[in-house]
């Protein structure tokens, strides 16, 4: 661990200005991932600007019926929020399935989006890793990759994004609000995280100096009927092997609308556009669900150690949709 300076931001614009001037500085939220990475030597910021006390700690209803979640809202607060639980249950479930109670009490909404992969090679500076040291190689592809990607990976990197929360947000069409040196911009969550391509060192489209201020959820009435199902190697405190966030709107036995995202399968929360397209207007049956899941997973490129994720994702998606139907009846 290297020495670093610590500053507590008093307002967003000065925090951004300070970061812009310091090319190897980092914003600090809850620190539940960044501080670990600093101890391991994976992250070596020379300046931490603590943004956890900026006034982005509220959950507000928007005039358009949506909800704005401040970037500094703690994961445990967000999971317990009545509006979230009533209107976006998949989000509350996703939050509660992640980490531990202690970590959720510290972790922020903005920070959760910026978690880095838990690939074992990324977290060990004695090993090569293209994400940590571009061009050094990827030992995971021919090594230990049980928890790594089956979709959207590249030759350079097969990492998975570890967040549960982001998977629900991807399904919910959330929008990330960002403040930067050039003002504000809004990034749809599904465009926020990148696929690795030949630049695996870049997890997101954020530029240095940009600060997440909030996440907006659109009004999506049928999301009140949604769920998050996480499958992992133990019952608690483990990252997803596969997870499914799904909201389903069925009338007269026909799928009117649907939102699906998969976790644990890719470098980004994986919005299941193909599965959604295969479901809309179709009868809400197990057979349709299975075909939709298979359509989504047709592009999967599993490795020997994670090939099980393909049937696991298929089964979990089909079962989650069936359970949403059962629940509605």
């Amino acid at each position, binding site marked *: *661990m*290297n*020495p670093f300076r610590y500053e507590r931001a008093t307002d967003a614009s000065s925090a951004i200005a300070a970061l812009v001037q310091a090319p190897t500085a980092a914003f600090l939220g809850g620190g539940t991932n960044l501080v670990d990475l600093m101890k*391991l*030597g994976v992250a070596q910021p020379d300046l931490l600007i603590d943004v956890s006390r900026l006034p982005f700690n509220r959950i507000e209803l928007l005039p358009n019926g949506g909800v704005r979640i401040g970037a500094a809202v703690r994961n445990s607060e967000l999971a317990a929020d009545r509006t979230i639980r009533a209107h976006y249950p998949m989000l509350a479930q996703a939050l509660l399935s992640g980490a531990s109670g202690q970590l959720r009490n510290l972790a922020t909404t903005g920070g959760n989006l910026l978690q880095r992969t*838990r690939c*074992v*090679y990324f*977290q*060990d*500076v*004695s*090993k090569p890793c293209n994400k940590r040291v571009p061009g050094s190689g990827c*030992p995971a592809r*021919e*090594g*230990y990759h049980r928890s790594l990607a089956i979709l959207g990976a590249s030759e350079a990197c097969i990492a998975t994004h570890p967040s549960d929360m982001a998977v629900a947000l991807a399904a919910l069409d959330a929008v990330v609000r960002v403040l930067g040196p050039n003002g504000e911009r809004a990034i749809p969550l599904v465009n926020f995280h990148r696929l690795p391509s030949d630049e695996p060192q870049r997890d997101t489209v954020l530029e240095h100096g940009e600060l997440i201020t909030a996440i907006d959820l659109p009004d999506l009435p049928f999301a009140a009927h949604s769920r998050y199902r996480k*499958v992992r*190697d*133990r*019952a*608690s*405190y*483990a*990252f997803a*092997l596969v997870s499914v966030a799904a909201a389903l709107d069925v009338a007269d036995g026909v799928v009117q609308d649907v939102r699906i995202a998969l976790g644990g399968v890719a470098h980004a929360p994986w919005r299941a556009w193909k599965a959604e397209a295969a479901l809309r207007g179709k009868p809400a049956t197990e057979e349709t669900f299975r075909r939709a899941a298979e359509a989504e997973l047709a592009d999967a490129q599993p490795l020997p150690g994670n090939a*099980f994720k393909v*049937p*696991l994702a298929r*089964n*979990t998606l*089909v*079962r989650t949709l069936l359970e949403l139907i059962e629940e509605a009846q």
Partner: protein
Amino acid sequence: MTKLITRAIGAPLDRIDGPKKVTGTATYSYEHLPEGVAYVFPIRSTIAKGRILSIDASAASALPGVITVLSHENAPRLASLDNADLAVLQSAAVAYYGQFVAAVVAETIEIARQAAGLVVVHYEEQAHDVELRDDHSSLYKPARVNPNFETDTASGDVEAALASAAFSLDQIYTTPTYHTNPLEPHTTVAMWNDDGVTLYDANQGAQRIRDTVASTFGLSPERVRVISPYVGGAFGSKAFPHPHVILAVMAAQVVERPVKLALTRQQMFTAVGYRTPTIQRIHLAADRDGRLTAIAHDVVEQTSTIREFAEQTAVATRMMYAAANRRTTHRLARLDVPVPTIMRAPGEAPGMFALESAMDEMAIVCGLDPVEFRILNEPEVDPTSGRPFSSRGLVACLREGAERFGWQQRSSTPRMRRAGRWLIGSGVAASTYPARQRASTALARVDHEGNYSVLLAASDMGTGAWTALTQIAADALEVPLERVHIEIGDSRLPLAPIAGGSMGTSSWGTAIVEAARKLRTRLHDEYGGVVPPEGLEEIGEVGDNPEAQNFSMHSYGAQFAEVRVNIDTGEVRVPRLFGVFAVGRIINAKTARSQLLGGMTMGLSMALHEESILDPRFGDYVNHDFAEYHIATNADVGEVDVSWIDEDDAYINPMGAKGIGEVGIVGTAAAIANAVYNATGIRIRDLPITLDKLL
């Protein structure tokens, strides 16, 4: 053997060290802060085999606060290199990934750790060999297996019995590498003065650490003192000294200041031992009635190139079940890996996974209920040694366990019980552990006010020894608990064996009973029961239990598991575990329950979760933290119920108590694997039982 009259023994007494621990006033080794202390951070090799060509410590040494950087180029020579793993910084050779190649000593732990990252080590790397295979070219027969068992046993003609058997089975079972992972990391605080060196150290036996430090540094044992009253878990990894202890003592010597060293979790995956992976082949043969005619258990496992450790994996098979034709063997591969060590029921835990899985399979082959199949093959005497059992409660445990678990409701056909999307199954397995005793001493003292002290270098690594020994001492001295004060955890106290092999309480307790007997006798005979003003003390000294030459002595148990397996995902849940144990007399009903419950939880963790992943290209364990090396969480542990039968063993020790530290671990994994088979029809012979194996 004169049996103790029990009053305090058996009571569910709260831990006497409990209030100190929950209020944070029990001082663990790393919490000691000697004046002028410096901090040590080890640097580990990043190759599995080769030589250090050069070490560039210039950047590290230039960092303000760095006192020195130690390596084989400048480290003092040790007096003894007998234990090659403890020959820390004595040569340029690298024998495994993670071996200590250098260390930084600095004013703060942060500086030491930063400087460690600045040390550049150049290696000449050689091809390494780290993968265990059952056809490995280096397989050899060790002279003995841990702690001192015969490597192989054979009687009758296994092959002929197999050839003529009505029923037979030939299967291979494997267990992966495991790391002990106590919550408290390995820590040593070392301070030299004119009299020698004093250590605050987390271990399972202060005198063993003392003796090793003394011989390694060429000191007489009196010049080394090791203080270890409170230890935050060990599971075998703190029984023998590991390189960090030597490094701390060396660093304190070099910088002429006290030093502190705490291993990181990642370092603990290469520096403090682990359980060898095992490849176990089991042959069983039975006649038409299901009586076993042959049992063979052939084990392949690993050791390091620099020091041998041979796990006694097949030893329990030597006495579990009757059969005229028998064989057990152990073969080791010498690999470029860290030195394995004892861990949570070494031998029995992996060995009984294989045997008890095979017994379940064989019961099915024979068309018998797994409980009845085991009872049918109960031996009358130890089938290998021919000795009678001092007591053997396996059948009683199986019967009582089956009754209370509701074994009759189980369907013998797999996939017959279901709740929603979950398949439900039940399984059973036997457990066992040797009931051993080692030489020990204890000093019992009384002052003129009638306050009693009992002193011995015993160790409580979280097991409850502080409390159990107080209960034994109170009954042995025939005084109320409040009048007895125990002192343990210091190498200057009277000689006592380590906490290990489930023999601490048996060994220490027997010595306490002997010391108390002598003290009471002398007080009565010489002083008429009136304590003289200067007080009175007596040393009790006991050897190994002489009855061990006449009897086969073991704990037994029966473990029952109910599992649920998700049809869609293969997730395994264990809603219910029930263990019934025959372990002699229980010293403390509360701590005993905790130990057995904890053991079964470790067994569950072994069944479903634990596995150290070796990347053969590096020779390193890559899942080296608690996020990736999975140990069962609270959410994984359902209802765990523990029971014991009344067992009166007249030969074991004056307390009539068998060790309970490890028997709870043994058999759990097989019970769960057998239940998974009952639920799904899928037999998992390779631990852990992860969901991908059940999809």
